[in-house]
């Protein structure tokens, strides 16, 4: 039954992380956390999670490294082009009717989606009246997002995605190649605020017209999904839009009734007018 001891150790580690660093992973899907902790054990050269817990509590630079294992930053520019195409062709015509706009990318990781939206808004002439919030729990990810530099070998995929999303310009207009990386134009983040925010423990901070929270809820268990969706529901204006990942759904949450399917195939929901 050694496995069940590992489960106990993981619970204790997550409690310790919460008490000491105020990051709450206790409601995350454990199978995924456990896999990533196994990788962290190899990285830290620890034999047990208890040993890892001791390192994290006693060595100042250990926790930021562990945090990168506990959070997942994997995305692409214009990931799931059909999602962005629907935003462009069906959601933006609604948003265009507002004099000013707020968009929240919840769980923005390294910022790929923020840059995607910024490029799309520029192409659609909505950049100047829109404020984009990119939030994440991982400060290292936020730094990368602010820097906006991505590995050059990812650019062909990003370019293809951008075209498939209905892009009206050339992606190469927005970055300069340097040192094996592609650095995106700083002017894209003129109306972007990157900030530390947790869907698990933080509160509403602004009224949003669109929230894009993709492939974040899948790492949460059901109670935590309910909490996060409630927070997003409260943050949205009436008839505001919520975009989820390609295989995420509100159906299993307590707040499904507060939304209607706006574009079912790409998981874009609209908050009901009476909510």
């Amino acid at each position, binding site marked *: 039954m050694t496995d069940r001891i590992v489960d106990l150790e993981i619970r204790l580690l997550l409690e310790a992380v919460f008490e000491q660093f105020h990051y709450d992973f206790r409601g995350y*899907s454990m199978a*995924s956390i456990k*896999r990533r902790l196994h990788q962290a054990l190899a990285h830290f050269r620890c034999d047990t999670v208890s040993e890892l817990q001791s390192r994290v509590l006693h060595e100042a630079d250990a926790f930021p490294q562990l945090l990168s294992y506990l959070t*997942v930053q*994997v995305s692409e520019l214009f990931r799931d082009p059909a999602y962005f195409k629907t935003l462009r062709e069906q959601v933006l015509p609604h948003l265009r009717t507002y004099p000013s706009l707020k968009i929240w990318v919840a769980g923005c990781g390294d910022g790929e989606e923020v840059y995607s939206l910024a490029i799309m808004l520029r192409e659609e002439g909505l950049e100047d009246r829109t404020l984009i919030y990119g939030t994440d729990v991982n400060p290292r990810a936020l730094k990368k997002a602010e820097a906006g530099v991505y590995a050059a070998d990812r650019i062909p995929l990003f370019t293809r995605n951008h075209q498939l999303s209905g892009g009206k310009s050339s992606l190469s207009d927005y970055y300069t190649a340097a040192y094996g990386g592609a650095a995106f134009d700083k002017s894209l983040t003129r109306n972007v605020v990157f900030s530390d925010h947790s869907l698990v423990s933080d509160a509403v901070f602004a009224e949003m017209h669109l929230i894009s929270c993709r492939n974040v809820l*899948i790492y949460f268990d059901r109670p935590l999904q309910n909490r996060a969706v409630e927070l997003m529901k409260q943050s949205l204006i009436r008839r505001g839009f919520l975009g989820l990942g*390609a295989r995420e759904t509100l159906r299993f949450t307590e707040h499904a009734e507060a939304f209607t399917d706006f574009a079912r195939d790409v998981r874009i929901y609209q908050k009901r007018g009476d909510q």
Partner: protein
Amino acid sequence: MSRRSHEAVVIGASSGAIEAITTILPRLPEGFRLPVLIVVHLPPDHLSTLPELFQSRTSLPVKEAEDTEPIHPGTIYVAPPDYHLLVEIEGTLSLSSEEPVQYSRPSIDVLFETAADAYESALIGIVLTGANSDGANGLREIWNAGGTPVVQSPDEAQAPLMPEAALAHCPAAQVMTLNQIAEFLIVEGGRHD
């Protein structure tokens, strides 16, 4: 010590997968009690029609796996394209868009490793045809957890590399033809202890 009876089946396949899986599924009888979790490698932008395709070949319910859903007996779950499929220890499914493992998302290893952790000795793991080595590590984990590893006979497999790699990592695995795998599952899935 008596062995726990089997509670779930995980299957991984790559090149040649559809033919192999549609050979096994029609043989599973109504009332088959084990859940079957399947990972098939597909190109990431492939439109997922696998559940429909498999459903046309079996009377057991087939569905694309959804995040946080409970695993029901006698149901066939297929991993969605571009997501890993994981099993939680409380018997629910979860999805993840973590980085591909050995270039694959969904990854057979990820399903097998998490299922081994959840089901321990009550799991049957089956590696079918394929042209890479995904599933080899996972099958070994199933063996380590006391479960039952099975590999499609490389002689019969359309692409023998994946079964061969699985056997190299997990020599204790039973080698069976697709027919034998179906027979084995019928016996295991009909048994109530």
